């Protein structure tokens, strides 16, 4: 694991094993996300990427091993416990509340917060990041275009004032032009000092903006390196970048 000169990781997985019934999904997974970095977890279908996210968020309880937030073991804590402490996720396919207005979607992002001033400040931050969202505040979010919905999804996640943002397949199901916008948005959020943990199949895209990454194969971390090294890795190029 990349050593960060003794800095404490923000969010960690220590020797995680996860089962769905008898099926062994994650096998001895070790990950550490440090404050303010942009990292990615690469892997194909059914490699355990989504389970990793769900385990990190407490939606799935690991059989063995610990999920550690700020040095505290948080296994078995409800998702709300992690959200309150600065972990949140932008789910795959955005998953907005389509029948609710854009404003309500954003407010739900801040559901657990009670600091009115802070919420207002963050709302304005989201408006200034995404002026298009501001124009659509009272519309039902289901009526927005795909790109606008992506902005609302990110804005909603930012409303919980996260320290680490988990992104589930940000390029999934989007038109190529939107994928580009999306990754620009991710970088923009990253520049605001939020750590980003991105789970992706699109290795090229993810590695082009990430600091470092892991490769997950049938539930096991097979590669753990800096983004540049992973880009250059012939094994990865063979299996994920489509070069035989």
């Amino acid at each position, binding site marked *: 694991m990349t050593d960060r000169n003794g800095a404490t990781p923000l969010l960690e997985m220590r020797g995680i094993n996860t089962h769905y019934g008898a099926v062994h999904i994650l096998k001895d997974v070790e990950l550490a996300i440090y404050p303010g970095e942009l990292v990615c977890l690469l892997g194909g279908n059914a490699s355990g990427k989504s389970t990793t996210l769900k385990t990190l968020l407490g939606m799935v309880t690991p059989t063995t091993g610990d999920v550690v937030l700020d040095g505290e073991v948080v296994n078995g804590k409800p998702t709300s416990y992690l959200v309150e402490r600065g972990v949140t996720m932008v789910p795959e396919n955005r998953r907005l*509340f389509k029948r609710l207005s854009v404003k309500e979607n954003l407010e739900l992002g801040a559901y657990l917060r009670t600091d009115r001033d802070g919420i207002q400040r963050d709302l304005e931050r989201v408006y200034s990041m995404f002026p298009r969202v501001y124009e659509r505040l009272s519309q039902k979010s289901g009526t927005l275009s795909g790109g606008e919905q992506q902005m609302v999804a990110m804005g*909603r996640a930012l409303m919980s004032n996260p320290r680490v943002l988990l992104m589930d397949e940000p390029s999934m199901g989007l038109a190529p032009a939107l994928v580009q916008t999306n990754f620009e948005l991710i970088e923009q959020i990253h520049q605001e000092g939020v750590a980003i943990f991105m789970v992706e199949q699109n290795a090229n895209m993810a590695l082009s903006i990430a600091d470092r990454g892991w490769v997950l194969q049938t539930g096991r971390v097979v590669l753990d390196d800096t983004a540049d090294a992973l880009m250059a890795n012939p094994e990865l190029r063979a299996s994920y970048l489509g070069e035989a």
Partner: protein
Amino acid sequence: MTTAMRHKAAQKTGVDQFLTFLRVVLSFFIITGLVMFVLQQINPDNPIAARINPDATGLTADQFEGLVISGLSQGAMYGLIALGYSMVYGVLGFINFAHGEVFMVGAMTGMIVSNKLDEAGAWESNFLLSLLFIIVVAIVCSTATAVIMERVAYRPLRGAPRLIPLITSIGVSFLIQNISVVLLGPGAKSYPTLPDWLADKRSILFFEIEGTKIMVLVVAAISMAGLWFLVERTKTGKAMRAVAEDKEIASLMGIDVNKTIVTTFAVGGAMAGVAGILWGILFRSVIHTTGFLPGIKAFSAAVVGGIGNLGGAMAGGLSLGSAESLAPLMVLEPWGIGGVSQLKDAVAFLVLIFVLLVRPTGLFGERLSSEDRA
């Protein structure tokens, strides 16, 4: 899609043709009935009206007004019950058939408490305060019933296929009815007599309305406004709507999904409790099976309005109530059908069938667009 499949999709099946036939026949029946009614009202001696049903008498303005008002006041009561069906369906996706019993519990507790108040003399001397009190007690008991029901019967089935809680709810319904028989006996029980001043007619705009019905409409309107405020304007309501749409993402927002589901049952139960008292005021008699018919009708109202849609539940209740009050005389009688005033219940369900034939999503139901399903 292959050509063969497209061909098949375009082709109407026998079922489609049958449904179209039903739509046409029912629409014809209703429209013709209404036209004949209107003709008869214009001129009772006109040959068409007289020929089809010589016995039909038509309606005087007073009768019509009375039917509209009593239809609306019963409809408001159905609407209040329908909210509970619709809310639970919205959040959990199953029909809680025991919801009619939650309403019955409200009516029963109202009966017990109002009789106690009557013995103490408060019912007569301080009616409005007593009414408020029994409403509060009914809300508390109905809410408790709904919440306990969720905890004991439905929560253990959270992951099960939807048919299972649905069947369970029928069992819960029988259970509550029988508990009522054990505790209070099988006979019908009555509410104390309402004060005379309440029954007096008052004129509001162009209408002369009985005080009782004004009261029913006012109480229903206040409750619905309160519910609307809760659902649309508060954080709890926002959480309820979020949970109804996507539980996983709602919990990602930090919403306690279980707690929100309990809140939904509680609010639905409170509305049913209010409806129970309205029943008591309108009919003054309650028995352990009281919940059944209004429950089923309220369920129909929820479907007519578009299940899962709260505005729809209210509108569905009002239209169902008005239809069952007006349609027998305005549609059935001109056709020469006898004993129409006893066909009220049949009419309520015919309305349901008609709406489902013409607009399967209900009056205000939204069809999911293809994008929503993706």
